[in-house]
């Protein structure tokens, strides 16, 4: 038996609903239909009255989650696509994110955001918004790259007393499988060395982890060992693990699927440059999507974002520096 990343997300929600009466799910088509991606499949049937279809009102969806959280509930919100969280942006960054700091009343909501590109997704069904949300004080931003993390981090997201932006990657939904659900887990806030190496560190997260690992395997054939760090959560961002890896390798390539100005890769490089400057044997590098909207046609899309090839090229280039 094996379980996909998507099934893990579904199972985590089932467990959260089963274990904690304060949990409910609210989002468009999450009810009987089981969600646009089937992440809530059969949950409405298994947990009657606790999985509610919402109108197309992202602002009110998030607002209601906040109100319910104030009253002690632990809502899970599903955005149909991360891209559609923008009409709910104001409630997330100004209401949910500031509540605890202003009032001492925590805001334990989890907002699931199906993120990232799929061939044919186009400009409005492919976006990665993690960097956007991480900019705001008061939010936690998780970006699981594995089936195990999808499961355990979602459970932790629901358990955490603060608003969590849970960026789950659509490409991993079906493509990523694990033999079983994990029984234990790394805590949120810790990055993982997904592949050990000595010559160069690639820091990445979410779907790009797998592209980076593929590039690393290829380069290993050429005799060079790349260490790959999976950030897991980008806020908090585990600078220690990143810097420790750079201390081992002396070289840093940071890879993300989001737009190139700012965001995760800039933040990681800024931290390493600041805190681990003396450890670098070559200039740190980064690789992001291009600075245009995300194209529809797969031929365009596949060059727009980084992939194993372009990561490999960037890594080889950096290894030669």
């Amino acid at each position, binding site marked *: 038996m094996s379980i996909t990343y998507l099934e893990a997300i579904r199972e985590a929600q089932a467990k959260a609903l089963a274990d904690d009466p304060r949990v*409910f799910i609210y989002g468009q088509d999450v009810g009987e239909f089981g969600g646009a991606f089937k992440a809530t499949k059969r949950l409405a049937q298994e947990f009657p009255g*606790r999985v509610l279809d*919402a*109108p197309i*009102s*992202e*602002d*009110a*969806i*998030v*607002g*209601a*989650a*906040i*109100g*319910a*959280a*104030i*009253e*002690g*509930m632990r*809502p899970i919100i599903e955005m149909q696509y991360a891209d559609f969280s923008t*009409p709910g942006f*104001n*409630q997330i960054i*100004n*209401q949910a*994110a*500031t*509540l*605890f*700091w*202003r*009032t001492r*009343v*925590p*805001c334990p909501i989890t907002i699931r955001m199906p993120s990232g590109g799929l061939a044919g997704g186009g400009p409005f069904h492919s976006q990665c918004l993690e960097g956007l949300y991480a900019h705001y*004080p*008061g939010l*936690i931003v998780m970006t699981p790259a594995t089936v195990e993390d999808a499961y355990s981090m979602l459970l932790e997201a629901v358990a*955490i*007393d*603060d608003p969590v932006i849970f960026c789950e990657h659509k490409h991993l939904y079906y493509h990523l499988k694990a033999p079983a659900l994990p029984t234990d887990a790394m805590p*949120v*806030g810790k990055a993982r060395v997904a592949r050990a190496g000595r010559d160069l560190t690639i820091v990445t997260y979410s779907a790009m982890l797998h592209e980076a690992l593929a590039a690393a395997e290829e380069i290993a054939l050429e005799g060079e060992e790349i260490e790959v760090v999976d950030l897991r959560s980008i*806020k*908090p*961002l585990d600078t220690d693990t990143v810097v420790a890896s750079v201390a081992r390798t002396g070289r840093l390539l940071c890879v993300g699927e989001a737009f190139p100005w700012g965001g995760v890769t800039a933040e990681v490089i800024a*931290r390493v440059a*600041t*805190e*681990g*400057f*003396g*450890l670098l044997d070559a200039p740190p590098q980064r690789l992001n999507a291009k600075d245009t909207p995300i194209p529809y046609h797969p031929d365009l899309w596949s060059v727009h974002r980084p992939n194993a090839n372009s990561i490999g090229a960037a890594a080889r280039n950096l290894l030669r520096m």
Partner: protein
Amino acid sequence: MRDRLHPMLHSEENPRTPEAPPPFPAQYLKAYRFMLLARVLDDKIASLGRAGKIHGGVFLGRGQEALSAALGMALRPGDIFAPLIRDGAGRLAFGEPLLDAVRTCLGSALGPMRGRDGNVHRGRPKKGLLPMISHLGAMISVVNGALMARRFNHVEGVVGAACVGDGGTSTGAFHEALNQAAVEHLPLVLVVANNQYAYSTPTRRQFACKDLSDRAIGYGATPHKADGTDLEDCLRVLSTAVAQARAGGGPQLVVASLLRLCGHGEHDDAHYVDAKLKESALGRDCLQVAEERLLREGWADSEALLALRQEVTREVEAAAATAQREPAPDPFKEDWCALSSRHLREIFEAPIPSIPA
């Protein structure tokens, strides 16, 4: 002094049980007291503002006390209330301590917002009093969510009220939230104070329907209209709307007409307010209208009103004096952490300690 008030006012115990509503004069007088308290408080805040003791904007509720007090009185402990910028009277009627207002305006470390947020941005979420964020319309869906939580927890007979201005009705948030309340059939009472202006913008640049209460039908909500200058009408309409919501009637949309009797904030001289509006019935001061009524009906005489004003003024002065003696927040003792999960916070010290090259 108490003798000069209508005897009904003396019976104070739980006057709002629906089974035995208190006699009308007592209710009226009680509401009047909240209005007066709010007005005197506003005057004090304005004077603290002029004295340079308040940082940032100073926003008053002058002219909106009847509507706001009537709403606050129609609510009960256990209800949810998201007041807005001009709801001083409703806050007091709902039970917000007088000190909360002064402390928040002054930024006292002992206030509910501890100097982190200010002026009208205050509340006590765990008491059902939600602290507004500035973005207009944004509190309504939060009330919805609180009501959904009550329903999940099988708490019944609860009402949630949210306030918004004529300008706030133009926000997408207003629409999404009212529709959401209707779909969920929530006991939401959404109170629109149509005070004819949004900052300087007159209603003709804000909406084009005949009356904002015409919006209700489009949501499946129940419309109510109130004369915001007349406390009796406000009491009647708000108690009806709240009772209907409480009884399971779904969302209620109350639109009250009145005029903002001050600037948008104290920095604004409101020169743009139409003189004709000021002279019209809309321009009446609800506090004065209520006072005249009290006197006319013999529910109080002028001496009693004067005494009441003195009593209320003493309360306000005492609160202001207390809050002014209180410490400001100390930035070096401040807990600079936006997260409740302290172990997940990121530390951004400046400058970040470095490993030299």
